[in-house]
């Protein structure tokens, strides 16, 4: 892990790895979509159950990418791992996008099932808070110019936001919510019939592979961006010396 802290080594290795999760994501998502539309309609939700094949994996990945950011934040603050900050910055827009997908698909499911696009339910509200956290973190990076201060501020804000993760997970148990309780990740095992569980898990795997590809690609771009800035600063210094 630490040997990958060398950006040149990371770029070489990630360049070779990058096509694989991308190709695998395309295949798995195609199979997942096929199975999602072949699955039977739910006895209560009817055909709208097909929205769940997007909504649930998006929610899982929204939480997962925040966790990736939190681990990266620890890497930045505690060990100053050179790639931790790069990883955190690359993960933020991906997590925000999955959270947005979760909120939009949830609203589109809620309208026919609950009669409302939005209710101020604990699960929905805590997911909205997660989305706002992502937006705040992305904004903070653009606000603070000095990179070491930005790194520290973003890492601290990210770690504060971790408090929201158990609130999201357990909100359906702690409060009386309109949102249904967990039906896949639960102690007693999944309560979903395999005809719906398998497409759901396949879609989750496809989303995870897509997220992995985008995260690797984002990290590579971030390393390049920092190289560009280094060279731009060196060029500016050289021009200053020539002018002096």
């Amino acid at each position, binding site marked *: 892990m630490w040997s990958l802290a060398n*950006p040149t080594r990371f770029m070489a290795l990630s360049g070779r790895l990058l096509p694989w999760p991308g190709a695998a994501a395309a295949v798995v998502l195609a199979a997942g979509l096929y199975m999602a*539309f072949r699955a039977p*309609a739910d006895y209560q939700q*009817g*055909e*709208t159950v*097909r*929205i769940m094949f*997007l*909504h649930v994996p*998006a929610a899982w990945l929204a939480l997962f990418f925040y966790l990736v950011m939190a681990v990266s934040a620890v890497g930045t603050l505690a060990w100053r791992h*050179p*790639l931790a*900050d*790069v990883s955190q910055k690359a993960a933020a*827009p*991906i997590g925000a*996008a999955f959270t*947005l*997908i979760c909120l*939009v*698909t949830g609203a*589109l*499911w809620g*309208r*026919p099932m609950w009669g409302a696009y939005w209710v101020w339910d604990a699960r929905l509200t805590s997911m909205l808070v997660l989305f706002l956290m992502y937006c705040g973190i992305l904004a903070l*990076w653009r606000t*603070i*110019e*000095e*990179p*070491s*201060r*930005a*790194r520290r501020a973003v890492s601290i804000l990210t770690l504060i936001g971790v408090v929201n993760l158990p609130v999201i997970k357990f909100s359906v148990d702690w409060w009386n919510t309109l949102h249904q309780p967990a039906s896949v990740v639960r102690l007693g095992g999944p309560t979903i019939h395999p005809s719906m569980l398998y497409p759901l898990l396949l879609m989750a795997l496809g989303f995870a592979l*897509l997220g992995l590809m*985008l995260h690797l*690609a*984002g990290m*590579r*771009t971030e*390393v*390049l*961006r*920092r*190289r*560009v*800035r*280094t*060279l*731009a*600063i*060196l*060029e500016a*210094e*050289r021009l200053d*010396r020539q002018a002096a």
Partner: protein
Amino acid sequence: MDLGPHAFFIVAAYAATALVVAALILNAVLDHRAQVRALADLEARGVTRRSQDASADVRPQPSALHVPGSG
């Protein structure tokens, strides 16, 4: 395939997801291309970290990952 009376909501959910994923991929591709182009432009102008080693009094950055303005 008949999606029943709520077909609009189902199609809208899949369309919105496709849109967000496409935007994410497009942004990643365009951003990467922009950085590759900017790096190539700088290198074409003879700006390299190695050249700074050889030239006078400015020491190169210890790592490309810790650069002022790279926040």
